[in-house]
């Protein structure tokens, strides 16, 4: 008899948590699976389940020069954005980590604000600002816009990594005759590198599939992949888009595994 009520409590807790987890996984994984399955269809429609299977839509990607062009644009923009986000984000994090408590708090919130502000509103505001100062819309303005919304990810993980860094190690380095720069290069940077890489990875991914900022800040020549995909889908219900999605999902999974190995990503983005 003893322990029954407790067991029941634990059981119902597990049951509820299990069901919630199952629901979350279902809602996340099922649509992804559906897209991947549909991408292997042999028909001209996005119907699920597909009447038969083939690789024809993946083969078609080879000729889809508009999609390739857009993917290349998205890739280069994401790359530049990531480089800038790393430089700015790490610099900001070092500043935050060295500041007294209250300044650090204020700075932290300011740098994090792009995460909570509506990205559409930011896109519009940035567009107005650029035209106000007379900058025409170009890949440069696009990269600036992406950087603003992606920097917080780098700051988040880098500040966390810096908080883990034992300041005694830095004092130890100084007592051994190392200048501040030498200490940064050989102690600080190697020890926070996994944190920086984790943030950079998330920044890259979030730039790569950013729509709201791109909508406002790209010029007519700069076709971005997520927007192109949406337009193709809207206009012609093109099955190639399912293949693009399938390819992106596969690449993302590979990148995730690599980053997990390199940085312990899952521990850093909690």
């Amino acid at each position, binding site marked *: 008899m003893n322990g029954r009520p407790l067991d029941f409590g634990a059981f119902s807790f597990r049951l509820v948590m299990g069901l919630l987890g199952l629901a979350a996984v279902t809602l996340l994984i099922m649509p992804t699976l559906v897209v991947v399955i549909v991408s292997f269809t042999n028909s001209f429609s996005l119907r699920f389940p597909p009447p038969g299977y083939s690789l024809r839509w993946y083969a078609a990607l080879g000729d889809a020069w508009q999609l390739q062009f857009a993917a290349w644009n998205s890739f280069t923009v994401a790359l530049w954005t990531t480089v800038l986000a790393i430089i700015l984000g790490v610099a900001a994090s070092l500043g935050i980590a060295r500041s007294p408590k209250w300044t650090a708090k204020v700075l932290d919130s300011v740098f994090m604000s792009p995460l909570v502000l509506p990205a559409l509103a930011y896109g519009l505001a940035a567009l107005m600002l650029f035209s106000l100062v007379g900058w025409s819309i170009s890949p440069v303005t696009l990269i600036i816009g992406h950087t603003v919304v992606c920097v917080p990810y780098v700051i988040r993980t880098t500040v966390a990594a810096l908080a883990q860094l034992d300041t*005694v190690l830095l004092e*130890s*380095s*100084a007592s*051994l005759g190392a200048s501040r720069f030498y200490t940064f290069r050989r102690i600080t940077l190697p020890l926070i590198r996994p944190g920086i890489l984790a943030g950079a990875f998330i920044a890259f991914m979030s730039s790569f599939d950013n729509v709201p900022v791109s909508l406002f800040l790209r010029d007519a020549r700069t076709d971005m992949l997520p927007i192109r995909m949406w337009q193709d889908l809207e206009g012609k219900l093109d099955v190639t888009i399912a293949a693009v999605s399938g390819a992106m999902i596969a690449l993302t999974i590979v990148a995730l595994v690599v980053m997990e190995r390199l940085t312990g990503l899952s521990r850093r983005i909690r």
Partner: protein
Amino acid sequence: MWEARTVSGQALILNGITHRYGGSLAVDNVTLDIKGGEMVALLGPSGCGKTTLLRIIAGFIRQSEGAVMVGGNAIDALPPHQRNIGIVFQNYALFPHMSVAENIAYGLAARGETRAAQQNRVREMLDLVKLTPMADRYPRQLSGGQQQRIALARALAMRPSILLLDEPFAALDKNLRLDMQIEIKSIQRLAGTTTIIVTHDQEEALSMADRVAVLSQGKLEQFAPATEVYDAPSSFFVNTFVGASNVLDGVVRGVDGGQAQVRLGDGSDLSAPLPPGIQQNARVKICIRPEHLMFSEGAGDLDGTVALGMPLGSSVVHEVRLGDGTAVKVAGPRDAGAAPLAMGTRVSLRPTHATSVRLYPA
């Protein structure tokens, strides 16, 4: 092996060092004159300012007042990395992403010495701390004692003019602690590096250091050779903090030349050397170490009954309750086969020497 040119530690002078954190005084006008090659212990209870003093010497914090001088030159304007002062932290602070060899070579690499010079020095240092087989290990693969020896090797590798050790043995278990104390002492002798060791453990301070600086609430209480600190403590604090001591209350009843007659709470009288500044009728604290009290054959100075007897291997400690209820401890050598005195035995006590009774203003 060790090179002769390191056997010349630099003199270190602390001149009126005062430090305040915000408004609170952590170090209060401390002056120390430490000779080259000497090993000095900073001894005091937790919070008395030892670490603060060490961090001032290392340059991590700037003192509010006073000057630090190494080899006759003031170093107050120098940042930590230009002071050439080695430090071994309490948790060792080895660089976790570097091998043992890379840790030891770090200071030389930071100064841009050649690969070959670095490797030579690493080999010498590993030899010195007897950890040559560990060169390629990482810190997390070492035991506490090994990590400490590597931290020491890393600090000594750059030939520091001064070596600072902050509570170096606090994290080690007792057996290992004694081994490491002996080892560090002999390495320090060999290297001839002027060394300051911070500790709150008086046995450690007395056994390792040439001279001991006792600190209390940021103030220097006494700076003297270990034996002198124990035998001739300069204050009530030092007398009770360093070594065990019985403390009794009394009043000075008579002064005769250099001697004082003191009346205790139970009505008995003791004779003690009269320290300067204590007058007739002054209330005093009386300190007698347990090993400076002995059982008297005839009538002694203090009468009481045995409350407890504890044989401790080669010695025996008795607790004796005096007439007014005060308990005092009496320690002495134990004869083979001798049992402690039974509880309730009436005894009479007297000091072993007249000079072993010490008086301090109450």
